[in-house]
Every structure is written in structure tokens, then in C-alpha cells.
């Protein structure tokens, strides 16, 4: 048995040596998120973050975005550092950023942590609710020296949303079924920002609270949900007219559903309603136009 003890001893020494050599390096250069000065070279790892940073007037400072950042059009000319899901850390480093902004869930948090380990500053934002969007605006504004602009944006956005809710607010909220995907049928649940936008636009989610964020539902639930309006966001590259036609055909099987009976099925462009960013108002207004077109007739 002697030899096994030797092997164990060697592995133990190796481990101890590892801690001795590398243990101290690990905590040496963890980047903090507070910068001594406003960031001048910013990389954004998500399309809605790109929109926020552009809206703060940092068009010059932003140097890198992900491939899926397509708004505003100026974002298309920026350096690409991978996709939202598969960021390329080498490209981020090569851009020599002094601030990298990411979202808060695994794939994104992960790249922020890796960059911190190498010594880059990063800011991780959770933007899953409207409230969090406003918080993110403030934080990013503070990190980039654009507090004033951030406050203005927030004020403006809140005012427009308020005006809209005054306009649409009636006692009868319209029941909306928000279709994420048709086969299998999956809709937006209550615990989503889509739900918040629907409510801001004077509607109500036709689906009650569910375990799932985006619950898959069966024909039974569709029949009993009593949706008065069905909204399908169109995929970016699809032809909306084509999808509208196929939507009408798909939903025709539920003839009793008020939305189908009254032909209130809308296919809308998805970019303002699929990301939570500074175009929140535009997205909400688009929904409001579907729910209460008579208010926007003029």
C-alpha cells in the first residue's frame, strides 16, 4: 500500500504548491465597478444595454456591441464582440474597454466575472422589470458621468407612460393573450415585463398566474381564457404580412374566442416589445394601439 500513500502525498504537495503560487494572485486585481472618472471606452453585451447607452448620448464612447445590437442604426457600425449568448472575451479585451456592461443572468454574469478576474471594470445590470430599467438607467448614468441625461430620460419616459395610461385607462381592461410561440403554444405569463407593458397599455393578461414565466398552454386554456385580443410579435426577419395571414389561419380553429370572432389578432414588430430598454414607451404604445385603436384614430 506504500505507493498509494506516496501518490497521495505528491498530490497533496501539488495542491499546497498551487495555493502557495496562485492563491494570492487571485484576489489581486478584481476590478471594481466604481470608476475614478467617467468611462470613455464602453462595451455593451446586450442589445437593450446598447440602446440605453446610446440614449444617454454616449455615441462616441461606446466602442463595442454584440452582433444582435441593431438599434439605433449607429450601433451597426460599432465593433462586434460576439453575440449576446456567446460573447467573445478576446474581442472584448482587444477593444481595450474601461467599462463593460452586461446583463445579470448566467451567460452574461459569467463574462463579467471573467473580465473582472483579468482586471477589467464591469457593471452587471438586472433588467427584467420596468422598475429595474429605471434603476439601470440611473446606475449606468452614474458610471458614465451622465446622471443628468439619465434623469431626464427617466422623467421623460415616466411622463409619457403616465399620459398613455391616463389616455387608455378605463374600467374595462382588455384581456390579451401574448403569444411567444405557436407550436407548441407558449404565451407570456404574469411575471414578465410583457405583462407590465400590457397593463400599462390598458390591458390585462388573459392567462392567470402560472408556475412558468412563459407557460405552454393547451387548447382548453385558450378556450376558457376569453382573450379579446391576441398579439404575436413577429420575428425580425419574417414578413409581418405573411405571419398575419398564417396567424389568422392558425387561430381560426378557436372560433368561439372573442379575439378570433372579432378578428382582433395583431402581428407586431418585435424589437420594441422584446427588449426592455429606452424604447419602452414606443413598445407600450404599439400595444395600446392594438388594444384600443379607437383612441389613436386621429
Amino acid at each position, binding site marked *: 500500500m506504500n505507493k498509494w500513500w506516496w501518490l497521495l502525498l505528491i498530490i497533496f504537495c501539488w495542491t499546497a504548491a498551487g495555493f502557495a503560487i*496562485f492563491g494570492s*494572485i487571485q484576489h489581486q486585481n478584481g476590478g471594481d465597478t466604481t470608476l475614478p472618472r467617467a468611462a470613455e471606452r464602453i462595451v455593451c453585451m446586450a442589445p437593450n444595454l446598447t440602446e440605453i447607452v446610446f440614449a444617454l448620448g454616449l455615441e462616441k464612447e461606446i466602442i463595442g456591441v454584440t452582433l444582435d445590437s441593431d438599434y439605433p442604426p449607429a450601433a451597426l457600425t460599432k465593433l462586434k464582440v460576439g453575440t449576446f449568448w*456567446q460573447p467573445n472575451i478576446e474581442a472584448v479585451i482587444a477593444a481595450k474597454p474601461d467599462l463593460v456592461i452586461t446583463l445579470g443572468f448566467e451567460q452574461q454574469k459569467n463574462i463579467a466575472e471573467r473580465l473582472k478576474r483579468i482586471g477589467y471594470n464591469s457593471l452587471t445590470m438586472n433588467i427584467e422589470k420596468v422598475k429595474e430599467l429605471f434603476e439601470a438607467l440611473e446606475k449606468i448614468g452614474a458610471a458614465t458621468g451622465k446622471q443628468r441625461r439619465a434623469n431626464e430620460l427617466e422623467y421623460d419616459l415616466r411622463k409619457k407612460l403616465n399620459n398613455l395610461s391616463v389616455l387608455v385607462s378605463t374600467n374595462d381592461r382588455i384581456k390579451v393573450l401574448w403569444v411567444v410561440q405557436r407550436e407548441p403554444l407558449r404565451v407570456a405569463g404574469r411575471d414578465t415585463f410583457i405583462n407590465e407593458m400590457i397593463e400599462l397599455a390598458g390591458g390585462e393578461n388573459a392567462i392567470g398566474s402560472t408556475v412558468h414565466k412563459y407557460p405552454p398552454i393547451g387548447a382548453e386554456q385558450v378556450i376558457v381564457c376569453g382573450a379579446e385580443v391576441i398579439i404575436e410579435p413577429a420575428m425580425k426577419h419574417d414578413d409581418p404580412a405573411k405571419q398575419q395571414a398564417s396567424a389568422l389561419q392558425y387561430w381560426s380553429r378557436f372560433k368561439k374566442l372573442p379575439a378570433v370572432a372579432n378578428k382582433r389578432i395583431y402581428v407586431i414588430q418585435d424589437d420594441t416589445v422584446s427588449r426592455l430598454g429606452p424604447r419602452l414607451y414606443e413598445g407600450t404604445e404599439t400595444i395600446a394601439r392594438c388594444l384600443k385603436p379607437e383612441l389613436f384614430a386621429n
Partner: protein
Amino acid sequence: MRIEVMIELLTPRKLVVRIILAAGALAVVMFICSLVGTESVSLKAVFGAADEEAPVNPDYEIFVRVRLPRIILATIVGGALACSGVVFQALLRNPLADPYILGISSGCGLGATIVVISGLNWTLWGRSPIAVFAFAGALGTVWLVWFVGRLTGKFHVTGLLLAGVVINAFFSAVIMFLTSIAKAEHVYATIFWLMGNMTEEDFLTLWLGAGFVVGGTTVLFYISPQLNALSFGEEDAKSMGINTARTRTIAFGVAAAITAIAVSLSGLIGFVGLVIPHGVRLVFGPDHRQLLPLSGIVGAIFLVVADTVARIIVAPAQLPVGVVTAIVGGPFFLVLLVKYSRKVSWLK
């Protein structure tokens, strides 16, 4: 082929020369791959004295902090998976065996999924909870399979395999349940992890990972003569005076442990543990004294190359490395199979 013939065929000198040649090839491949990437890096700038003028040296950071750790990680993981694939194929006497066959994949997948979905947020020695849970899940599942397998009889291979398959299916169902109730972003994050997620690690992790994998491989190499005997069957091995139960326990435990280390470092990378041992066996023969070290080195080479392809082929984005290992490894293996299978009796 008789076992005596097989052992005579491989002289120690031949073995050492082959291992040295393979290790040299690995070093060359690692060097070349470290120069390939989406960003061009000049070695002069990496080691040059750029520090005085510029506060940051992106070339240095890309090369030393990102690319090199990732290549070393691929080496460790590739070697670990290929070696444990060899051992599982010998132990289970099943050519379809790979490191994941006894439920390790779904066990660590479940651990990772739980972390991603619950949004746990702490670190243990700089490791994210995903790695810790994946490791625990992998070892826990292997223990469970081993335990159930024992209940079916003293090392009954069929019982063990069935227990592995069923536990795999069960945990996969739990993973599917969890992802079906999760948010879309969490589902995506989990899927990428399940497809193999190679990122740069800090040097301490690499150092420890390398230590444990090399240590485990040493143990396996040490018992490779017994593995030779075992692969010819229980009775043969016993008649040669080998304590089969002990050999199996050691081989099984060590192979499971290095697989668990590999998956906790890099997610589930399929195909390496299945294809590399077969490929090496087809080309160089079935003697485990040679099969084990050569598979380890070839597995490392294969994964380093596959990961380099994954880094650059859809630039500026990256592919999960598991996609590349399957797409590159599958056809390559079929060619080997057709070309060499007539020479080898093991598969018949």
C-alpha cells in the same frame, strides 16, 4: 488474440517512444493553437516591454489570461475524458461505453441546472456554484448507480448499465422539467452549459485540475495490466490471480472522479471519451498500458484542436465545443473504423 501475445507485442521501449512522440505532438498543437484566434496576437507584443507606456497590454492579456488558460483547460479535460472512456470501456466490456454512460452527464447537468435556475450566487475558492454543484451531482449519481448496481449482484455489468441508463433518463427528465418552468434566458444558459462550455479559468483551478487528473491517470496506468486481464473477462482475470473486485472499485472510482472534475470544469463535452479510446485502440492496439496514456494525450490534442475551431469558426461569436467534437469526431471515427477494424479482434 491471446493476452500473452498482446503483451509481448508491446515492449517498454516502444511504449516510451510512442508516449514521447505523442506528448511532443501535443506540445506542438498547443503552441500552434495558442497563436490562432479571432484577435491576432503577436508574441513580441505579449512578452515585449509594452508596460511602461501603456497601462494595459491587450496582447498580453488575451494571450496569457484568456487563450493560454483555455488551451490548458482543453488539454486537461480532453485527457481526463479520454482516459476515463478507456477505463469504462474496459470495465463494462462494452464498446458503447463512454465516461457519461453511468449517469454522470445527467447528474452534473442536474446540478448545473439547479444553480442556473435558482440563481444561486456565491463562490467557493473562486469557483462558481455551477462547478461545485456539477461536481457534486456527478459524484452523487455515480455513487447511486454503483450502489444500485451492487444490489443487482456482485458487479453485474448488465445491472450496472441498466441502473446507469435509467438514472440517466430519470435525471434528464428532472432537468427537462426544471427548464420547462424556467425563464427563457435561464433555459438558454443551461443549454449552452450542457453543450460544453469552455472558458478560461484562473491558474489555480487549472493547476489543481491538472494535478488531480494526472494523479488519477497515474493510478489508472498503474493498474492497466489488471485492466488488460479484465477486458478479457472476469474468469480469465481471476484465473490469472487478479483481485477483480478491488481493481474494479479502484478503476471505477478514479475514472468517475476525473470525469467529474472534467465536467465541472467545462460542462458536458461529448464524444471525446467515446471516440478517442476507440480510435487509439484501432490504430495502436488494445493493450491498456499503451491505450491509456496514448488516449489521454490524443484526447487532449483532439479537444485543443476542436476548441480552437469552436473559438474561430463563427467569429466574432463562438460555438459550444461539444458541437465541434461531435461534428469533427464522428466522420473521422467512421474513417478509422472502416480502415482499421479488420486488424483488431476486440470489436468482434
